[in-house]
C-alpha cells in the first residue's frame, strides 16, 4: 500500500508566495512513487512539520563515513524515528564543487540520477563553505552514492577539524576585475593539501577562499582562515575617452559626489579638460571607482594578491576579521604560484603544530602575537599589516638597533632589486 504524506499545514504555508518554494520540491520528491526516496521524503516532511510545530530540531550526529576517508559525511539520525521511521537516517555527503561553480547540464543530470537512486533527491547548491550538499541518505547507501559521484569526477569535501572545502569567485572566467587565476590557485592549494581534508587531524577547521579582487565576492576576509584576494601594484588603467563619455552621461556633479567623494583616500581629481587623474601612491585599491566606471577604469597591469589571515565568526573569542600577512604577492609565473603554495603549506603546518584544540588560526595569533606567526613561516613584517602602530608602551625594545638595521637592509635589497 502506498504510504501517505501526513498533513503539513504549517509547511503548506510556505508554498504560497512568489519565491520558489523548497516545500514544493520536498513534496515532489515525496510524491514520486517511482523512486526509492518517496517514503523517506514523506517522513522527512513529517519530521520537518513536527519541528515547525514544536520549534525544535530533531537530528543528532553520529559516525558515518566512506572507506578510505575520515570525514566529509555529515551523519544525521532522527531523534523521533519512531514516528518517522523512513527518514531515521538522513545523512549528507559534502561534495566539492568545481572551482567557480561551473556546470554543464549533463553533469547536473548525472548527479540527479545518482542521488535519486541512492539518496533523497534533495541537493543543496551550495552550502556556506561551497559544498554541493547531497542531503538525505541512509547509512548503507552512503558508500555506493559516494562511489558513483567519485567515479564521475567528484570528490568528498571537508568536515570537522580539517581543511575545508574552498570557494573561488567567477573571476578570470567572466570578470574584467579579476587579478589572478583563481581556478589555478584554488585547485593548486586544495589539491596539494587534500590529505588534510580527507583525514581530519588539524586542531580545528581551516578554510581557504579565493576572490579575484578586493570586492571579495566569496566573502573571504570574514570567513576564511586564509583569504587570497586579488589586487595590483601599479597604476589603475584609465581610458580617458571613456571617462569623457561617462561624464557626458552622468554629469560632473554626479561624478564628484558618487565617484570622487567616495574615494577613501581622496586620490581622485578631475582636470579642467575633463580628464581624470588618480594619485596611485594614495590609492588603497578599494575598487569603488573601478566598480562605478568599469569601462573607463581597470585594475593595473602588475597583478597579484593580498593575503589576509585569521577571519572567522564569533566562537570562541568573538569575530575576527582576516588581517594582512602579505600586502602584495605577484602571481604571474609558475614560481609565483609555487611561492603561494609554500606559504599555504607552511601556514597549515604552523596551525597544526601551534593551535590549541578547537582554536582557529586567528585565535592562535591573538594568543601568541602576529610576529610569532610571521617569524615561524618566514614572512617579513610590513607597515601594511597594521591599522596603526601600538599605542601602549608595554613592550621590551632592547633589540631596536638590530631590528632597525634589518629594516634598512631590506630597503636596500628592494632598491637593488628594483634597479635590476
Amino acid at each position, binding site marked *: 500500500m502506498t504510504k501517505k504524506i501526513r498533513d503539513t499545514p504549517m509547511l503548506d504555508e510556505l508554498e504560497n508566495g512568489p519565491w520558489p518554494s523548497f516545500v514544493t520540491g520536498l513534496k515532489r520528491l515525496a510524491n514520486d512513487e517511482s523512486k526509492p526516496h518517496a517514503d523517506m521524503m514523506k517522513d522527512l516532511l513529517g519530521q520537518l512539520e513536527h519541528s515547525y510545530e514544536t520549534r525544535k530540531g530533531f537530528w543528532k550526529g553520529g559516525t558515518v563515513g566512506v572507506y578510505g576517508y575520515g570525514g566529509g559525511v555529515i551523519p544525521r539520525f532522527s531523534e523521533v524515528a519512531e514516528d518517522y521511521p523512513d527518514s531515521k537516517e538522513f545523512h549528507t555527503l559534502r561534495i566539492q564543487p568545481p572551482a567557480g561553480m561551473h556546470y554543464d547540464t549533463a553533469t547536473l543530470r548525472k548527479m540527479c540520477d545518482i542521488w535519486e537512486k541512492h539518496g533523497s533527491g534533495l541537493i543543496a547548491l551550495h552550502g556556506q563553505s561551497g559544498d554541493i550538499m547531497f542531503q538525505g541518505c541512509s547509512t548503507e547507501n552512503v558508500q555506493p552514492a559516494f562511489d558513483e559521484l567519485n567515479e564521475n569526477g567528484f570528490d568528498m569535501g571537508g568536515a570537522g577539524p580539517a581543511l575545508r572545502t574552498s570557494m573561488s569567485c567567477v573571476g578570470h572566467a567572466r570578470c574584467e576585475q579579476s587579478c589572478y587565476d583563481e581556478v589555478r590557485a584554488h585547485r593548486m592549494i586544495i589539491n596539494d593539501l587534500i590529505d588534510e581534508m580527507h583525514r581530519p587531524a588539524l586542531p580545528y577547521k581551516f578554510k581557504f577562499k579565493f576572490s579575484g579582487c578586493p570586492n571579495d565576492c566569496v566573502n573571504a576576509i570574514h570567513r576564511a582562515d586564509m583569504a587570497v584576494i586579488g589586487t595590483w601594484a601599479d597604476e589603475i588603467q584609465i581610458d580617458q575617452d571613456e571617462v569623457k563619455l561617462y561624464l557626458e552621461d552622468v554629469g560632473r556633479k554626479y561624478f564628484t559626489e558618487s565617484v570622487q567623494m567616495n574615494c577613501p583616500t581622496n586620490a581622485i581629481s578631475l582636470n579642467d579638460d575633463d580628464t581624470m587623474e588618480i594619485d596611485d601612491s594614495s590609492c588603497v585599491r578599494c575598487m569603488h571607482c573601478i566598480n562605478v566606471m568599469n569601462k573607463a577604469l581597470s585594475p593595473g597591469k602588475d597583478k597579484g594578491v593580498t593575503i589576509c589571515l585569521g577571519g572567522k565568526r564569533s566562537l570562541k*573569542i568573538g569575530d575576527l576579521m582576516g588581517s594582512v600577512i602579505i600586502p602584495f604577492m605577484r602571481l604571474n609565473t609558475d614560481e609565483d604560484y609555487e611561492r603561494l603554495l609554500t606559504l599555504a603549506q607552511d601556514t597549515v603546518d604552523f596551525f597544526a603544530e601551534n593551535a590549541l584544540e578547537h582554536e582557529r588560526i586567528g585565535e592562535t595569533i591573538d594568543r601568541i602575537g602576529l610576529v610569532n606567526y610571521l617569524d615561524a613561516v618566514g614572512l617579513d613584517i610590513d607597515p601594511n599589516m597594521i591599522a596603526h602602530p601600538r599605542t601602549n608602551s608595554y613592550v621590551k625594545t632592547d633589540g631596536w638597533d638590530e631590528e632597525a638595521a634589518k629594516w634598512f637592509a631590506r630597503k636596500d635589497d628592494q632598491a637593488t632589486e628594483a634597479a635590476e
Partner: protein
Amino acid sequence: MSEMREPIESGVPDPFPLMHPTLKANYGNWSWHDRPRPGVLHHVAHSGDEVWTVRAGTPRQLDTFAIRELCDIGDKFADGHVRFTTRSNIEYMVSDETKVAPLIEALEAATYPVGGTGNSVSTISHTQGWLHCDIPGTDASGVVKSLMDELMHEFKNEEMPNRVRLTTSCCQINCGGQGDIAINIQHTKPPLINHDLVANTCERPSVVARCPVAAIRPALVNGKPSLEVDEKKCMCCGACYPPCPPMQINDPEYTKLAVFVGGKHSNARSKPTFHKLVAAGIPNNAPRWPEAAEVVKTILRVYKEDARDWERVGEWIERVGWPRFFELTNLPFTKYHIDDWRGARGSFNASTHVRM
C-alpha cells in the same frame, strides 16, 4: 561483501570541461561589463566576444525535478551550461543577445525570478535549519522563503542605494555569515541540562573548555557525573550544545531572532566591517516569521529612502549616526546594544562627536 573501493582522491574538480565555451575562450581576458536590465549582465572580452548572463533566484535546497527543469532551460536556451553564485543564484550564459528575452521568459514561467544583480536585494545566503542541522534554533529555508516572498520587488529591481546582502543563521555560530542585514538566532535562557545523559554523551572537559565565559563546571548531580552552569555568568550563546546535546539550548519560546546590520565584505570605499546588533527578542514565529520580516522591511525602507548612492547599509549608518538610525527605524535602543565583550571599548564613542 565485495572488496571496498579505494576513493579517487581527485580533489577540486577542473571547471574547464564544464565551463561555457565563451567563458573558457576568454578566460582572463575580459574588458568591461554593463547591465542592460536587472538580472542581466553583459560582459565584453578584449577579443570582442560578448556574453550575456541571466541570473535567477533559487531556493538552494533543490529537488531533482527542479534541477532537471533548470537544466532543460539551460539546454534549450543557454548552450547547456550554468553556474551558481555564492548566494545560490543560478546563472545562464548566452553568446547571442536574442536568446536573453526567451530565456528570461522561460525562467519566469517556471517561477524562478530573474534579478539579484547590481543594487538589488539578492538571494539570502543561508544555513540548514530544522531540515538537516543537529543544533538549529530555527529553519533557515523557511525564514528565507518568507522574506524573499516579501522582497520580490527588491530582488527583481535595482532600486537600492547599493547592493544589499542578506543572511540568516539558525544558531549563534552564524554559518550564514556577515550581511548588510543578518537575521540570526539569539538564545535568551541558559541551557536546560538532562543530567541523566551528560556522563555518557559528553566529553566533559572539552565542554567546559568550549564556554567563552567559563560558566560551566563539572558537578555530581543525583550521584551522577554531570555539568552545571553558572546562570549568572552564562550569556546563552549555545556553544556548549554541539559538543554536549544534553545541554539543550533551543527553546520554543526563549529562542528568539535578532537582527544585525552593517556587515560588508567588500573593500569598496570603506574597509570590510562586521554586522552589529540592532534588534532582538523577535519571536521565532514559524512558518512565516512576520515580526522578523517587519524589522527587515523597515530597515530596508529607511535605507532606501535615506542613503546616498553607493552607500552600503553600514556606510549609511556611519554617516547619519546610530541615534538617527534608531530614530528613523523606530527600533528601541537598549542596554543590550552596548557591548561588554572583550574589545568593547573600541565600540564606545571616545570623542565629543555627538548627534543632536
